[in-house]
């Protein structure tokens, strides 16, 4: 037993030749956010507070695809979504289609705690945010030059695929990394467990580059991108459509519960067998304080720590695996 925390900044085709000026701020952010989470756990904050805190920090960082730095829709706008789940009670909150709310994850938490509903979206969610006094800003706050460029490059490369009159292959679509080695997909997330085995998970994202306006991904769907119960907490990232179909986060917990697999084996099974290659990564912790961070993409920005002093940071597969 003991506490444990893991967080991610997105899985995808992260090229090993990514230039240092792109890589270093993200690595620094992962370390910083991990430290914040660890300090909070040491200060006995609840896992729910910890995951919200860490994801807020990741949302505020412009280098990840959530909050500020979110990727853009096909119209060059931002539509953010997030989800939070308390493993102990299985209470959850989710939001989609946010355009002005600074911290989507906090709105998701307010939906969970202050409404009889679980999921609010678009205008209704924005209105609710204002009623609850959450911080909102002009939408331009979230848009970064890097993402404007990313959208442009993506549109150029994918001209053919947006013709909606043609049937479209969902899983086989190849990602197009931009010239600087960045992946067009990603999400941020955090999972944590305290000394008493209480678990929580939180995920937040801007979605998929060049997505259709109104497109909802896996992040706000309980059981797909986010899940927590009394066994484990999971936050997934990757190709939303594949994660939804694979009910990824729920399946990790289901394999543990129904087949008695360990956290590590359950997570590996889901990542290796239930979702096609190059589509998914996840972070998960168990009630016993274990951590696992498998992915089947080129890389996943990730960090984890456990009470016994173990820490791990990474982008590409670890050498010893």
């Amino acid at each position, binding site marked *: 037993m003991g506490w444990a925390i893991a967080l991610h900044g997105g899985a995808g085709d992260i090229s090993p030749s990514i230039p240092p000026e792109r890589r270093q701020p993200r690595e620094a952010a992962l370390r910083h956010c991990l430290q914040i989470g660890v300090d909070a756990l040491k200060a006995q904050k609840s896992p729910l507070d910890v995951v919200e805190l860490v994801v807020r920090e990741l949302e505020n960082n412009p280098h990840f695809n959530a909050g500020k730095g979110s990727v853009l829709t096909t119209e060059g706008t931002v539509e953010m979504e997030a989800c939070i789940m308390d493993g102990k009670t*299985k*209470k*959850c909150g*989710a939001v*989609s*289609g946010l355009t002005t709310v600074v911290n989507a994850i906090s709105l998701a938490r307010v939906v969970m705690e*202050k*409404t*009889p*509903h*679980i*999921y*609010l*979206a*678009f*205008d*209704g*969610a924005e*209105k*609710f945010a204002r009623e609850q006094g959450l911080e909102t800003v002009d939408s331009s706050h979230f848009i970064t030059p890097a993402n404007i460029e990313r959208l442009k490059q993506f549109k150029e490369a994918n001209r053919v*695929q*947006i013709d*909606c*009159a*043609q*049937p*479209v292959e*969902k899983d086989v*679509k190849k990602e197009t990394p931009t010239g600087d080695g960045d992946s067009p997909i990603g999400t941020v997330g955090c999972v944590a467990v305290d000394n008493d085995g209480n678990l929580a998970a939180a995920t937040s994202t801007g979605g*998929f580059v060049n*997505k*259709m*306006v*109104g*497109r*909802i*991904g896996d992040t706000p*769907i*309980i*059981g*797909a991108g986010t*899940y927590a119960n009394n066994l484990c907490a999971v936050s997934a990232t990757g190709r*939303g*459509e594949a994660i*939804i*179909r*694979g*009910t990824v986060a*729920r*399946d990790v917990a*289901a*394999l543990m519960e*129904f*087949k008695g697999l360990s956290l590590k084996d359950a997570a590996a099974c889901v990542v290796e067998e239930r979702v096609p290659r190059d589509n998914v990564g996840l972070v998960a912790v168990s009630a016993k304080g274990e951590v696992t961070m498998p992915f089947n993409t080129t890389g996943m920005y990730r960090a984890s720590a456990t009470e016994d002093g173990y820490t791990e940071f990474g982008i590409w597969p670890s050498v010893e695996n």
Partner: protein
Amino acid sequence: MGGWAIAVHGGAGVDPNLPQQRQEEAKQLLTRCLNLGISALRSNLPAIDVVELVVRELETDPLFNSGRGSALTAKGTVEMEASIMDGCGRRCGAVSGVTTVKNPVSLARLVMERSPHSYLAFSGAEEFARLQGVEVVDNEYFITEENVGMLKLAKEANTIVFDYRIPALGLETCSAVVESPIQMNGLPISVYAPETVGCVVVDSQGRCAAATSTGGLMNKMTGRIGDSPLIGAGTYACNLCGVSCTGEGEAIIRGTLAREVAAVMEYKGLGLQEAVDFVVKERLDEGKAGLIAVSSKGEVACGFNTTGMFRGCATEDGFMEVGIWD
């Protein structure tokens, strides 16, 4: 074993004081929809086509809470949602916040087949509908007089129950409560009757499919999304089974109910009815819900922990049953 099977539902959680005439109308609609599905299955239509066909019929009829006859938002408008899943390859499509599309389940199918995504909502879904040329109407088309009346009652009950700043007191004075003390989602059952619709089918090739459609919770906040469009919660289908749920959205989402049935079959080797019973008994905690399911082997099952569920089911060997109560 083997052969086709079909089940339909019109919502779990029925007012025990529901007038007899209304009960008859519901049974007739369910029977008609079952027969529609059965003809389609006999003509060898694949499961995915059959579930869409049947749910379209349920949406078009104003009786239940989907398409025309949908529950109203707090603003008195209609916001519909639906999802569909094809057990073959687990392809799926979902829509939320639909306000002018006559058949949300068909829009969900188009999302599955004609867009690079799985789930579209609100203005994006409406825009996609226009691009695809689906039939659209004014929002008023979906609003029935009966539901306008229900909304009024719900607001009356809600000002006491749902105002989350105020503890739930004084409910006894609300006229809606006097009629029936059973509550779901915090509202008296005479006012809140989920009446989400759904259909699950396995065709003679053993392919499963599921579809669910709803107007959502009466007096809901604009933008509120329930379980019906969420894959794994309200709808799920894989190579083993097809499942559609109805009832308290929160309970269904937290319990990832539809996926749960498939998961216990897959990971614990339970049979269909066992899986359904297990999920209804163990996965709902204090929540109230029901579900229908079919297996690739041609079995059909339903389960609910509510007072009644509008449902009907039929299998190729001639079995057919329509019911409301236990």
